[in-house]
């Protein structure tokens, strides 16, 4: 059973305890709130509510003097307390709203004491704007350093929206620097990275920053020495290196829910009837709706409720989140049967002791029951959406494009989808996929499709098309390239062969054994995870460790997982890696004072080590699922996935287009 795979982690292989990060974030917030004395009105940046909801709950805020909460949005602010506390990202937009509200108060001669906490740090830019607006003197500017937030026990995220656009459309590298700072504090808690391996220009920039810091700063080296050995390396994957993966439709359970329903900061919006258990028994602490200046959207067809996807309150999720959606139904069925049998155990209980045993388990069973009910309901919501023509057509086009099968026919099919009024993001994802896999689209065809797109969805998408074609992204290019644009093309066809991206899968096998990381896209292996395998599981790139396992099993009757090999950088794959555009990084950081014999790092160690994989620019749920799979194939190595945010093709395209899904933050959980 898959659950066994995940729960049977031996004690000595326990991963880093990421909940520490949550505690740190929580106490920092409490400190920040307590620095302002007395009751206060909290004005919250809506984009922060999601991340904050993951580290704290409303009651904690109330407990620390928060009287009322408002969203930070344009318009007047009415505050009954003399203290007004703003908590927001240091963006120009936010600061202007703050300045406007303060000036409004001044005009109405209302006296308030203002404190602004910028997350994660103050920037010169915003203080400057406060100064330009003439309110800098009235506010106390401070920071709330919110960095990595644990989303699961092996995933931490900065939860920064829109990093992709900032980095590669605007060229604003703030997120690199913020990631750098977050990784530096990460090293303080968990030990330094002895080796930094990475791919991509931005990844290289981040690695250089980290390396520079590592060589100049040895202040806390003593503290770090204690757990020097727990982390074996940091792998930085720049989203630009693998644009294909997010463009595809994710086919794991969690991925598909994200694609079709949308997961925001680990919360998914579901009909209230599904989230609330019928009886008021075990309850997943409902995030009570905050008092807000915005009218609560009461006109919704059905009351929606946020549900937090976390394995702590939802044990079933751990079992199904990474499964290919095709096997989820079967799994749920199994669980239902098991649950049924567990309930039936009651009938067999004859003695009082047995009965007591059963009653003891009852709580767990009920939680599981509720969780099963929810996921069955959720699957029911998802299934019809996977039956639509648009969904299946786009899957078909994706698979054909990945196999480079008859590209021009696929383009016609995309045009048909435009004609049928398919969603903008779906169409553009397919177009970009076609351009990247085929090394550009014929100029004439491209122009035609672009015209179709503009006519169908509006001329205001022209800047987005330009951004996609810009050299920094190169996602939608004509073929041949115009003379003005230079730079290497993405060698997809080559990679498909050398990294074994496309796997012939037979559907029967997929149900039983997860063949390869390609299960996440039903037969296509994400390049990003293949690259990680190039570093941390070299055998896995060339053949399936799972299959080998199976043979072993036949032979010996007992599976022994292969001991993970030490990290030796890109060794063995230098040629392949060099064909991918972007810098290649491999830095060995010498520990400042510990002299370790050069061989020691190469010897296989019995103690488990953790490899931190950082996705700069975001990662998808499928990539997380794939990395978890990789981790399960070996003994002695865990992965900790760090990312700037969780992305999907839709969020990337919509980010570039500048149209977020409306109404998202309005009724955020906190």
């Amino acid at each position, binding site marked *: 059973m898959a659950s066994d795979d995940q729960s049977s982690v031996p004690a000595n292989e326990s991963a880093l305890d990421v909940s520490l990060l949550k505690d740190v974030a929580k106490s920092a917030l409490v400190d920040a709130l307590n620095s302002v004395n007395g009751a206060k009105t909290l004005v919250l940046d809506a984009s922060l509510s999601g991340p904050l909801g993951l580290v704290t709950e409303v009651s904690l805020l109330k407990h620390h003097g928060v009287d009322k909460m408002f969203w930070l949005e344009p318009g007047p602010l009415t505050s009954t307390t003399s203290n007004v506390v703003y908590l927001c990202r240091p963006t120009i937009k936010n600061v202007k709203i703050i300045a406007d509200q303060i000036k409004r108060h001044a005009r109405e001669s209302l006296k308030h004491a203002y404190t602004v906490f910028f997350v994660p740090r103050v*920037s*010169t830019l915003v203080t400057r704007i406060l100064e330009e607006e003439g309110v800098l003197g009235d506010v106390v500017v401070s920071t709330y350093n919110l960095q990595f937030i644990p989303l699961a026990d092996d995933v931490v995220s900065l939860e920064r929206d829109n990093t992709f656009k900032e980095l590669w459309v605007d*060229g*604003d*590298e703030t997120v*690199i620097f913020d990631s750098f700072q977050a990784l530096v504090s990460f090293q303080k808690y968990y030990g330094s990275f002895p080796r930094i391996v990475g791919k991509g220009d931005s990844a290289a920039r981040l690695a250089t920053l980290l390396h520079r810091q590592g060589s100049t700063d040895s202040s806390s080296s003593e503290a770090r020495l204690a757990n020097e050995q727990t982390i074996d390396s940091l792998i930085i994957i720049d989203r630009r290196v693998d644009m294909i993966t997010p463009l595809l439709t994710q086919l794991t359970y969690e991925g598909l829910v994200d694609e079709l329903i949308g997961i925001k900061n680990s919360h998914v919006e579901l009909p209230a009837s599904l989230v609330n258990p019928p009886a008021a028994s075990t309850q997943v602490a409902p995030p009570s709706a905050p008092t807000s200046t915005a009218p609560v959207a009461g006109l919704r067809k059905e009351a929606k409720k946020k549900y937090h996807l976390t394995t702590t309150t939802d044990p079933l999720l751990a079992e199904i989140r990474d499964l290919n959606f095709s096997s989820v139904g079967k799994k749920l069925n199994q669980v239902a049967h098991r649950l049924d049998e567990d309930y039936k155990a009651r009938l067999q209980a004859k003695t009082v002791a047995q009965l007591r045993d059963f009653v003891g388990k009852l709580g767990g069973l009920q939680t599981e029951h509720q969780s099963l009910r929810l996921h069955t309901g959720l699957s029911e919501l998802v299934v019809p959406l996977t039956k639509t023509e648009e969904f299946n057509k786009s899957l078909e086009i994706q698979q054909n494009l990945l196999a480079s099968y008859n590209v021009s026919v696929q383009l016609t099919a995309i045009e048909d989808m435009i004609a049928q009024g398919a969603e903008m993001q779906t169409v553009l994802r397919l177009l970009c996929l076609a351009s990247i896999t085929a090394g550009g689209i014929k100029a004439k065809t491209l122009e035609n499709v672009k015209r*179709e797109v503009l006519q169908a969805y509006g001329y205001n998408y022209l*800047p987005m098309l*330009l951004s996609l074609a810009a050299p920094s992204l190169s996602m939608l290019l004509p073929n041949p390239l115009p003379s003005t644009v230079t730079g290497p093309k993405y060698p997809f066809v080559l990679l498909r062969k050398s990294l074994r991206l496309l796997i012939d899968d037979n559907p029967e096998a997929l149900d039983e054994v997860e063949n390869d990381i390609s299960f996440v896209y039903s037969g296509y292996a994400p390049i990003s995870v293949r690259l990680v395998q190039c570093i941390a599981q070299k055998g896995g790139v060339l053949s399936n460790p799972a299959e080998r396992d199976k043979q072993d099993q036949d032979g010996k009757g007992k599976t022994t997982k292969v001991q993970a090999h030490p990290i030796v950088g890109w060794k063995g794959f230098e040629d392949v890696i060099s064909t991918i555009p972007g810098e290649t990084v491999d830095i060995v950081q010498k520990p400042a004072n510990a002299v370790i014999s050069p061989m020691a790092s190469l010897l296989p160690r019995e103690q488990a080590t953790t490899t931190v994989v950082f996705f700069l620019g975001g990662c998808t749920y499928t990539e997380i699922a794939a990395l978890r799979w990789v981790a399960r194939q070996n003994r002695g190595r865990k992965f900790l996935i760090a990312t700037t945010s969780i992305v999907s093709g839709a969020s990337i395209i919509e980010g570039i287009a500048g149209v977020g899904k409306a109404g998202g933050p309005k009724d955020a959980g906190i």
Partner: protein
Amino acid sequence: MTAHPTASWSAMQDGNVFYRRQQLYSTSGKLPNLNEYIVAGCKYGGPLAMMRDTTKVISIGGTNPALNKAQIQIYSPAGDGMLLFSWDNGKIVRFGWTDDERLVILNEEGVYRLYDLQGDYQQYSLGSEAGELGIVDACIYESGLVAITGSLTLLEVKGWEGARPLSLANPGLTSPPHAWAVIPPDLNISRHVEVLLSVEATIYSVDNLEVVDQRLSRGPFTHLSPSPNGKSLALLTFSGLLLVVSTDFQRSMAEFDTSTAQHADGSVRQIVWCGNDAILVTWDAFALLVGPFGDTLEYFYSGPIFAVTEPDGVRLMSPEVCDLVQKVPASTVSVFRPGSTSPSAMLYDAWESFSQRSPKADESIRSIRPELASAVNECIDAAGHEWEPYWQRRLMNAAKFGRGFLDLFNPSDFVTMGQTLKVLNSVRFYEISVPLTYTQYLHASPSHLVARLTARNLHLLAHRISTYLSLKPDAVLKHWASAKVLHSRPSGSGTATVTDASADDEVCQLIVDKFRKLGGPEVSFADIAKRAWEAGRTGLATKLLDHESRASDQVPLLLTMKEDRLALIKAVDSGDTDLVYHVLLHLYNRLPLGTFFRLIEDGGERLTLASRLLQVYAREQNREMLRDFYYSDDRRVESAVLSLEESTQILDPASKINAVKAAQKFFSEDKDRAFEAKMMDESVRLLNLQMQLEQETDGKITFSGLSVNDTIHTCLVNGMAKRADKVKSDFKVPDKRFWYLKLYALTSTRDFEGLEAFTKSKRSPIGYEPFVNHLVEKGFSKEAATYVSRCDSPRRPDLYVKCGEWRKAGEECKTRGDKAKLMELRKKAPNSLIERELDQIATSMR
């Protein structure tokens, strides 16, 4: 031989508790008459600052030469003058010490200065409002100050970085309080400063939120003094009654009538706490220690005294001596109390016997065998609390002796104590005169001590101590280098530039060598360079800056030195976007726009980040500048996009069209952007058309801002089919797309006849399946079924099923003679009725 430690002890509470008075230094003849001065003492064995009290009458021609000038004098605890400077900045209201031994002087205009022990100062102000009202009084504690303004309101300043003063709640006083005190934030439960004001018979406690009347009736009070841990408060009434209450005013802890003290002469001068349970009341030349149960100890002096609270006692400055009065620490009592039979006393006794070669040693050790380890620890601790090296040594020896009898003993405490004592003894030396006790040393941390020594310019000692304790040497080095830079100033300003440059080289080399030799790689040169630059030595500053490895430290200085380009490059290299913004905004303000743009454009590749960030900033805050920037750099596409972005925000159709037209023009100027120009052209046409449409419908229907698709859809939904056709032909909308649009629109208005007519107008380019599918999806199965017959025949049965027309599906099978399909249908049949029907058809097929 030095007097036995117990010689300075006095018993209290029936001999259970001991207090000791230790002479730290002899100050005879060094200090002026404290009576004539206002004095402020610094904690942790720090110096005294004093200023002549102008309200006191003094005799002329005495020992003090300059009396008419406002002067501040600073004396070390050993009574040596450390600094003397004159004050010329208004009337001083109050002065006091910060925790890093800087002297804060606040004048009546609300201006305060922070003087270090070298006489350099920083000046801050409490703001213009405070300046107008004037400052009446202030209370300065280690980490901030609270001031009373002329209008009797309270202002608080946190920290010493020139933070903005915050108003506390207004106590609504009509006259200044009789006495007042401040409980610092770190001693409060709320972690915010609390002010206690003695008003009439009661006390108000004030924080930044509220004023609470504590409803006392025994006031007014002349003295208020919170205890070192902030939990209790000592109050003295006009009648001389000393009250001790808890700071929440819930409990009264003790009462004592000071007027009953026999030797009291005149009024009480100070009420200070000695530890957390005893209070020292001082008169002119007499001090009375009042214990928690009203028992007293008396101390006599030859002249006026001044008491400074320490965390573990009270330091008393008198004309003759500098004394420390404290409760004797537990470990010391345990070892030295007469008749003590504690293990540590036995151990000490054993060691003494041993050194006298007496066999009693063995007996004593045997008797305490089980408690030997704790006895050793107690001896080590007692050694720390002894002032005289002689006794320190003896106690350490006793500990060492006891250690020999233990199988396992962790020597680190012993070693650390040895090191600590060495350090403490060296700084207690009267020429250094930092009379720090062991407890204070632990309180304030070793690095704090090192910082204090460097502030006295005692670099060598500071450096030796920091290396001895394996602290980082950079703080000392940095201070040394700054001092070096300041002191190595070329003697005459008129000297030739050649010697100047060589002197720079020399100093720079000296500093760099020293840093390389002593410090690690992490010493920062930027601060020193800054000092050099402030001292007017630009050459030296640049040279020093070259050695700085951290860009973030270089940039601000480079900016002040007007090395714009270099600063920008360094900022970009650092990867810190905030730093880049810092430079950009600074330069944007300082340079003419043209020069500013050129600087960024000429940077090319290296400054891409700067250019990108400027665009991000300008797009939000300063579009005009961005337009200029693009224009000056001939960036047509970006200009166009900017114009286009603006167009989306414009509501007025005419100006919107103009904005799009502008974008179109920019695109057309770039020959590679013909497609975009054409699209913009279409966009303009569409906008015009939409305006026209809106006019035709009298503005009842909004078209503006819709896409071509939506425009057609809106036309169709509103029965403007002709118009829709025109849009189609105008914008060359492909048939396929148009057909889908029409299908969707007509379905949504339930115009099934229209749809029927439309499909018959010509052959559908999209086939008829989409019609069936869409209609079924929208719930019009019946209408959908009519289109099935036009679809490809092999698909028909399935499509009929979709429409729920099982019978027709079966008949279709029959006409095609497809029995297998029919059977398949039968299997799927939802109910028996349909099953039977299908069976019928099946039989009829034979």
